[in-house]
């Protein structure tokens, strides 16, 4: 097992350096003069121009610039935002919990509903119910989620007035950030009704972000269940007179869960990409909205290292999923 982890770690390091190369190239591939682009004006005063080049280190040879960049990263310096003068790392840390909270809520929604839908469709294979569930799943899979979000806002927030249109919590409440997770922070504060308000803000974004994972999980659960239900041990379990519920959930679903769990891991990328769109629609103050706003404002340090941080996150999650999968399945572990 240790050698398996070591092998995976060995693959991780070149990938990490490759990503740094990508984010390093990002700022240098901008067409035109980087200083002019960053300052947002043409014909900057030559002296200021030289100073800016010096400050950004753009006047050194390329390889030197790359080593400087890696050196900065190694010392934990991710640069500072051109707009707020805040360090990129601090901005990331304050906004990240919001995205995690949203993603976890979406995954909870997608996982519960997806497993139920998949199991039901597999058990009722070939019936109209199965076809209906699978058609809905394919529709969800094809959904442009930015439109889906607008539709839900139009119906539930504007039309019925059930949920707020945007943000994480009503401005009436003053919640001190303790954990960064609004649901926990509102519980810790003594403001009455704040928790419910935070929950109402969370529902629509979580549904929107969870839609595609929900469809993927439902499809995957169905096909994994169908596969498992054909196995001999299911017939044995039935033959021994176990109750159908026990056969389906204990013998069937538990074994069908292994492929489904990998899909869970793979959805992290989908969730982060979806977060960019979902957070933009609902003005959710997370890293997706942060990144898009930084691109709009040409805040290149944020764009560069924000992308680096997200990529590292995805790499780490995939690594963890790989290891967990290796733990669960010895065949993967011993593959060369």
């Amino acid at each position, binding site marked *: 097992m240790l050698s398996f982890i070591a092998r995976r770690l060995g693959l991780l390091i070149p*990938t990490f350096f490759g*990503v740094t190369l990508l984010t390093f190239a990002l700022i240098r591939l901008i067409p035109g003069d980087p200083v002019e682009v960053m300052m947002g004006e043409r014909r900057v005063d030559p002296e200021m121009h030289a100073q800016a080049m010096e400050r950004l280190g753009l006047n050194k040879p390329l390889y030197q610039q790359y080593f400087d960049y890696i050196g900065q990263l190694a010392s934990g310096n991710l640069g500072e935002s051109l707009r707020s003068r805040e360090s990129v790392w601090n901005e990331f840390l304050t906004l990240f919990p919001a995205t995690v909270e949203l993603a976890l809520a979406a995954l909870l929604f997608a996982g519960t509903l997806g497993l139920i839908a998949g199991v039901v469709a597999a058990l009722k294979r070939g019936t109209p119910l199965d076809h209906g569930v699978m058609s809905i799943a394919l529709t969800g*899979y*094809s959904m*442009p989620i930015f439109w889906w979000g*607008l539709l839900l806002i139009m119906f539930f927030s504007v039309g019925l007035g059930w949920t707020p249109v945007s943000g994480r919590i009503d401005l009436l409440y003053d919640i001190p950030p303790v954990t960064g997770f609004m649901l926990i922070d509102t519980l810790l504060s003594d403001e009455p009704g704040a928790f419910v308000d935070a929950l109402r803000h969370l529902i629509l974004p979580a549904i929107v972000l969870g839609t595609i994972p929900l469809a993927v999980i439902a499809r995957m659960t169905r096909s994994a269940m169908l596969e498992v239900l054909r196995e001999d041990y299911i017939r044995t379990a039935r033959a021994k007179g176990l109750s159908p519920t026990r056969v389906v959930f204990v013998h069937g679903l538990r074994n069908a869960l292994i492929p489904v769990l990998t899909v869970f891991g793979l959805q992290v990328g989908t969730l982060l990409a979806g977060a960019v*769109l979902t957070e933009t629609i609902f003005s959710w103050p997370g890293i997706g909205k942060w990144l898009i706003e930084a691109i709009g404002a040409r805040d290149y340090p944020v764009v560069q290292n924000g992308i680096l941080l997200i990529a590292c996150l995805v790499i780490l999650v995939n690594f963890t999923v790989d290891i967990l999968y290796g733990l669960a399945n010895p065949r993967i572990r011993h593959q060369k």
Partner: protein
Amino acid sequence: MTTSTPLDQSLLYPSPLKEFWQAFAHNTGALGGLAFMILLVFCALFAPWVAPHDPSEQYRDFLLTPPVWLDGGQWQFLLGTDELGRDLLSRLIHGARLSLLIGLASVVLSLIPGILLGLVAGFFPRLLGPGIMRLMDIMLALPSLLLAVAIVAILGPGLINTIFAIAIVSLPSYVRLTRAAVMGELNRDYVTAAQLAGANLPRLMFVTVLPNCMAPLIVQATLSFSSAILDAAALGFLGLGVQPPTPEWGTMLASARDYIERAWWVVSLPGLAILLSVLAINLMGDGLRDALDPKLKNAQ
């Protein structure tokens, strides 16, 4: 000995095309998807003649006119008009052009280098394979939409850059698929036979092995066509794709956001066009997968 008895037609093996069509036509969803796609392609090709109005003509007296079946609807604007009085149906029809163009161009631009890189990686598993695969892993470390956003952030927004960004993003899946299929085929006897018969490397690559790897690639091309349309619309929605006033579906949605309380049609209809197109292609993709590659059936 001459055979005089007529051949029993039913015993003949059906032609591959006919066999494929029978399997494909068995799937009603796939047929529905195909029908919708034919309609869409027709609209896209003949947009200037199909569309009732010019997509950028502003009818100042008819701002935000509702669709014809609602109160205040006008027969000349079947699906209503947008905030500048432009005919929505005409803009949607012209938008189909852009979406299909982006999808097609980005699939072609990633399929060809993807296959080449995959073949090279598969044929030289020690020399070039690891390097190519590492590069693809790096590209896969970023979620596709984010990578596309990053690329557009470098190149700047616009139609051509959107196509490039989406093509680059979908490259890794072709490389991985081709390599996996090539490595599976290389151990087969027919490849050894071709090698012994003196086939040179390009012939081995393109004539002997590649045609046997096409099934998963065709399925993947269909699926990445639909995700190209989705990603292009998402980029347009974020203001990083095709720029207004070009009638791109995602861009139309972005400018419709402000009218969410007053005019549901400017918000609903462009999204519905995206959803139906993507759904139609995915339905076709499912049908193609079942017809071309029974091994992949039920797989995600």
